[in-house]
């Protein structure tokens, strides 16, 4: 657990005055969880992060990691026990990917062979082709460089990770991939992570808890992502969290067991007469393993169902998914019936928006109780062991 | 000090010759290296070729070049033309790379906008790339100017008349004052060149002064 107690950072402005980057900041980042610091530029989120591994020394206040005061630890020991990932990866251009990843283990005195074996494992673990190990950073794409940055930070298996806008410098598609793989990795590794971003969507997606900071370096709100969307503490947070909060908050609401409508399905190659026999304007087409492929307009089929006829606009929700996914599946489906698949990706049934909405309304009535329960659970874990 | 005041006439005469020997090559060098630098931005192999050749020319020590040019060109050893040509070679060697770098540094979006507006290759070069490269070219020119003023003084060893005369003459007569006067005069001349180039660059690039 990382704990900030009344941490303040002031900078002299050169003419006797001073500016406050971080002001009396207190926070607990619980062990094994992702805590995201988010806020507009100038809110001191990066300064806050960099005070943990003492890249910046606080003016006053105490930062502890597992109840050990960071100010009392030898600098090298402190930093080598913390994985550090930054925006432009900061790879060493003169070293191969493999040698970049082995840096910290080598500094810690691990022999070359062991360090390399472990590095190769990590390179694969972060989703990189092992063939890239011999390349130099300049030969990699931005996304690949960022993966190497993560592998390098994980190399010495530090319990704590600091991540400063690690996915900001890559394009949106790659960013989403990196975020998903980061979550997968974290579910395996369970590191204590402090994560800085200016992107509220990223914060809400990745954080177990989210700390919103305002300019001047004060904590505006600390909450779970769902709480944050449901109940922003003031206008600043509400404005920062942005539009479509109600809809976005649904992604944290697990879908309850719903009555799904079974649906007659067709496959590629089904004849036009069989399609029309279903007797509906839109018919769902599934693949060989029962996975939903798309809707077919019955009137458009002449001869047999072909891939060209598939309407693929609809999203597919999962039975284990969120209310948001269910609602979106219903809203995006040309037939008005949202496609739901089971855990194995097989078609499970359909659901209409009009069936999801009552569930949402019922949920709203009990939301306060549930949020309170979630918050106290988080705090329970956060108390010192 | 008195010595310098007593020899003001001579100082100005030699300074004038020095300025001519160091300054004319700057103009010649600029005129030649702008098209060369432009060529270097066109094709990678042209860039490598041009920069290699000009780079090799730059490695030849000045005194050696002053002596090698007369038999190659058929000029007399004492002909100031040797110095002008040698200094032009150094200036070209320095500026070709600078011009190429300056032209390549022009913002890609600016260049593409110019292409999209229908500029021809040459029209774009003249109207967009070259003006935007002026600050970089001017910086290179300042380096060349200072270097030229220093190197020209070496030519006094082979008897070409300029401020370097004070250095060789002062040394030969074991008269330090004269050497110091020569050094200071060279420095002042270099400073004048530097200021003139800066001023010209400022006048030619009014847009760089708006930011403040």
């Amino acid at each position, binding site marked *: 657990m990382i704990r900030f107690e009344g941490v303040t950072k002031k900078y002299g402005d050169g003419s006797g005055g001073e500016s406050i980057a971080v002001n009396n900041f207190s926070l607990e980042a619980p062990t094994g969880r992702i805590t995201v610091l988010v806020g507009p530029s100038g809110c001191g989120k990066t300064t806050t992060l960099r005070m943990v591994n003492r*890249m910046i020394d606080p003016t006053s206040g105490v930062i502890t990691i597992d109840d050990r005061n960071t100010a009392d630890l030898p600098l*090298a*020991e*402190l*930093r*080598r026990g*913390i994985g*550090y990932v*930054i925006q*432009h990866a*900061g*790879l*060493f*251009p*003169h*070293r191969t990917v493999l040698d970049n990843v082995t840096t*910290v283990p080598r*500094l810690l005195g691990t022999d070359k062979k062991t360090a390399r074996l472990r590095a190769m494992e990590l390179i694969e673990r972060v989703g990189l082709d092992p063939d890239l190990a011999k390349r*130099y950073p*300049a*030969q990699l794409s931005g996304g690949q460089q960022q993966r190497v940055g993560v592998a390098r930070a994980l190399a010495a298996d530090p319990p704590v990770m600091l991540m400063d806008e690690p996915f900001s410098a890559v394009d949106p598609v790659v960013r989403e991939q990196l975020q998903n793989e980061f979550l997968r990795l974290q579910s395996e590794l369970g590191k204590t992570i402090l994560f800085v971003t200016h992107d509220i969507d990223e914060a809400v997606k990745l954080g177990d808890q989210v700390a919103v900071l305002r300019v001047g370096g004060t904590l505006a709100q600390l909450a779970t992502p769902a709480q944050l969307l449901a109940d922003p503490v003031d206008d600043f947070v509400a404005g920062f969290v942005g539009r479509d909060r109600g809809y976005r908050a649904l992604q944290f609401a697990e879908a309850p067991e719903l009555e799904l409508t079974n649906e007659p399905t067709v496959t590629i190659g089904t004849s036009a007469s069989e399609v029309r026999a279903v007797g509906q304007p839109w018919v769902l087409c599934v693949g060989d393993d029962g996975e939903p492929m798309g809707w077919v307009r019955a009137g458009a089929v002449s001869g047999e169902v072909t891939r060209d006829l598939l309407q693929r606009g609809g999203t597919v929700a999962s039975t284990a998914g969120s209310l948001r996914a269910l609602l979106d599946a219903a809203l995006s489906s040309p037939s008005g019936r949202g496609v739901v698949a089971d855990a194995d990706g097989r078609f499970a049934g359909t659901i209409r928006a009009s069936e999801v909405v009552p569930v949402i309304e019922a949920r709203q009535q009990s939301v306060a109780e549930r949020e309170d329960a979630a918050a106290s659970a988080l705090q329970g874990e956060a108390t010192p062991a | 000090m008195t010595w310098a005041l007593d020899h003001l006439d001579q100082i100005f005469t030699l300074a004038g010759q020095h300025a001519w020997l160091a300054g004319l090559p700057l103009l010649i060098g600029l005129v030649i290296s702008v098209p060369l630098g432009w060529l270097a931005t066109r094709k990678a192999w042209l860039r490598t070729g041009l920069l*290699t050749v000009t*780079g*090799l020319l*730059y*490695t*030849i020590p000045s*005194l*050696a*070049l002053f*002596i*090698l040019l*007369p*038999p190659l060109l058929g000029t007399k*050893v004492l002909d100031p033309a040797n110095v002008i040509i040698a200094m032009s070679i150094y200036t070209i060697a*320095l500026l070709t*790379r*600078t011009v190429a*770098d300056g032209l*390549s*540094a022009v913002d890609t979006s600016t260049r593409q906008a110019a292409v999209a507006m229908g500029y021809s290759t040459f029209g774009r070069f003249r109207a967009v790339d070259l003006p935007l490269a002026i*600050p*970089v070219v001017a*910086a*290179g020119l300042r*380096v060349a100017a200072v*270097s030229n*003023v*220093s190197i020209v*003084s070496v030519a006094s*060893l*082979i008897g070409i008349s300029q401020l*370097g005369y004070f*250095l*060789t003459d002062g*040394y030969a007569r074991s008269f*330090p004052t004269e*050497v*110091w006067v020569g*050094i200071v005069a060279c420095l002042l001349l270099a400073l004048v060149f530097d200021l003139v180039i800066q001023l010209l660059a400022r006048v030619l690039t009014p847009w760089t002064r708006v930011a403040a």
Partner: protein
Amino acid sequence: MITFATVWAWFTDPANWQGADGVPTRMLEHLKFTGITLAIALVIAVPIGAWVGHSGRMRWLVTGANAARAIPTLGLLFAVSMLVSPLFTSSLAFTVPSIAVLVLLAIPPLLSGTYSGIESVDPAARDAARGMGMSDWEVLTRVELPCAMPLFLSGLRSATLQVIATATIAASISLGGLGRYLIDGLASQDYVQMVAGSILVALLALVADLVLALLERFAVSPGISGRGQGVARRRRLRFGRGGDAAASVKNSTDAPLGADPA
């Protein structure tokens, strides 16, 4: 009259290849002075340049050294010689001031090459290095110096050429080396000897520069120099955003031959 034949005759005359005034002796002298000078200048300039680049303090040292390059080399040579020579007897009276001036001239390019090399290291790489617990010394030796290699080496090439050229001129204050052919030839109106000497000096400079260019191949990580599978192109793209014109002028003026002459 100087013709190819007369110069050829000079080079093929066995007398010119023997004794204290022979080509091998003069060439070795020239190399010796150059080597000693560079060794002294490296010992002075590299630690200072590394420290200034690493700490970001006292940048005026580099600016000052660069400004000092405006002093005419010939003037510096004569002035220092007149100041220092009386302090020594024997041949040291000529060697010491010459070496001193050569060192003074070699320092600015080495200093600014080392400094700008270190200063140009990607701040993110430096930040990451500190963040993973490297000490200042480790950051300097494991990250900054290897990354500074290209600019340091172009400073070294620049310094080497400067020293070879000025050592030639130093013959006018009685230093040995190849410059003797030029200065003695001038005194005795032996133009053939002057031209021959000039050819030797030019060749020495070219060979020295090529050797240093080859050194660059070995001393610089392929990850930085961009040799091999398309590294250079990618790197240019990636660093393009930071590649401002001023930085490129700095490089090009430090060493006009900074790039690959191969």
